[in-house]
């Protein structure tokens, strides 16, 4: 943070031309992997993330199983080539922490009690990281859960908000994250009105925090809409495929 980069220009626009409250371009695909029970792929700016769900399935070792509900497990993992400097293959402390907070972001959305003695396993692979991968991973994992047909109270949509050059901005990219004054990832279940992931790096006054939280929730709602469209698109595609089959 020496030789400090200017992150907001004279027109109030960000380094990639976005307005402060603007998301990056988002491309969502659901059901992209044939082996997984559910899967989703999201490109958000230059961040590229894949999520897959296996389960509910039998749990090994068995003594970990719970008699009254499923166990949710989650692995957030970055490809070695996803970042500027090659990431060593072994899981980092950061990956272990994010696996935990993402799992806890999704847990309140899933009817785990419907599948006692099983596990539901979520695997998130960050293929390219340009900021926001824990949020994108959460968003993708929620879609993969839905794609796997697992009953949910709500989808989970996630988005970071941050502060760069003194301005609150939505959906930080990598430079904004690294050079900015604060980064706050949030996961939200819009229909339930509940926040299931909240972290913050940096410093914010109470007022800033209040505004930031609201901005994050707005971002989450936009992503939620895109999630629903992506799910719909998949079912339309399946329907068309089925109809084509029936007609032929």
């Amino acid at each position: 943070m020496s030789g400090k980069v200017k992150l907001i220009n004279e027109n109030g626009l960000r380094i990639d031309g976005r307005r402060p409250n603007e998301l990056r371009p988002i491309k969502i695909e659901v059901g992209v992997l044939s082996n997984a029970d559910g899967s989703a792929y999201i490109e958000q700016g230059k961040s590229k993330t894949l999520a897959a769900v296996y389960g509910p399935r039998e749990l090994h070792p068995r003594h970990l199983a719970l008699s009254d509900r499923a166990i949710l497990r989650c692995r957030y993992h970055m490809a070695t080539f996803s970042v500027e400097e090659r990431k060593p293959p072994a899981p980092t402390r950061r990956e272990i922490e994010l696996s935990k907070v993402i799992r806890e972001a999704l847990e309140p959305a899933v009817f785990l009690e419907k599948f006692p003695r099983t596990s539901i396993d979520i695997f998130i692979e960050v293929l390219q990281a340009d900021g926001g991968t824990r949020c994108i991973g959460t968003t993708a994992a929620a879609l993969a859960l839905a794609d796997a047909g697992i009953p949910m109270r709500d989808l989970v949509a996630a988005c970071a908000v941050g502060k760069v050059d003194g301005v609150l901005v939505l959906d930080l990219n990598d430079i904004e994250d690294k050079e900015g004054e604060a980064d706050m990832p949030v996961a939200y279940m819009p229909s339930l009105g509940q926040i299931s992931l909240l972290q913050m790096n940096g410093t914010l006054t109470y007022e800033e925090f209040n505004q930031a939280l609201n901005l994050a929730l707005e971002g989450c709602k936009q992503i939620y809409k895109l999630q629903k469209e992506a799910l719909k698109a998949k079912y339309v595609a399946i329907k068309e495929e089925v109809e084509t089959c029936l007609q032929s």
Partner: protein
Amino acid sequence: MSSIITSRIRQRQIYQMIASGKRLDGRGLTEYRPIKVEMGIIERAEGSARVLLGKTEVIAGVKVELGEPFPDRPSEGSFTVNSEFMPLASPEFEPGPPDENAIELARVVDRGIRESHAIDLEKLCLIPGKKVYVLFIDIYALNHDGNLIDASALAALAALMNTKLPVYVAEGGEIKKTSEYMPLPIKNYPVTVTFANIGDKMVVDPWLEEEEVMSARLTVAVDKDDKICALQKGGGGALTPQQILEAVQIAREKAKELRRLVVGNLG
């Protein structure tokens, strides 16, 4: 079998009391257990502190080494925070490398210190690009009766405030240790305030039984200027925006109490 039933009855008691604004151990909802901070208890460490938070007991030590700076911060010292949940602290803890809970705790404590710029890292540089002070802040949980995060953050801060750096002098391109020591340059005093969400109430400083029934946890790190310098939601439940905003407000007040315990009149 009987222990499960007891626990359900107990669970209901905890809920009911909290719903009525009280807690099983007699505290109010935003009240901390008695806290005791002792500094300088490990002479071998450059800094150390022990924190008792009710029956929760945590010890933090700071070791100082010389090392190379990170390439992107050539004129800054560095520090790492590690945490281990010792198996003597709880029947639930197993020997072995830190699990996700210990790692999360260490990273939350780290963020509070790092984001508030508590340590003046630029003053920890001896030869830019070559030699800097490297600090290891190691936190051990010795007895777990709930809220290890706040106890750990407090112990880490107290240990840092207690830290003496060996003074080095440059001699012909080489660096030599002298017999003198100087205090670690501290710029900020972050503390964390942790809440448990139990039946829609946010209670401060949950003890073990409350942690077992809480649906979610929220940790708020607050710096000396009342700014929020780290947040961490934990647990498999969710919180409303309103709950969070209120908790953050309370945290800013409680943080002052905690800070006073280690900083005294400085804070």
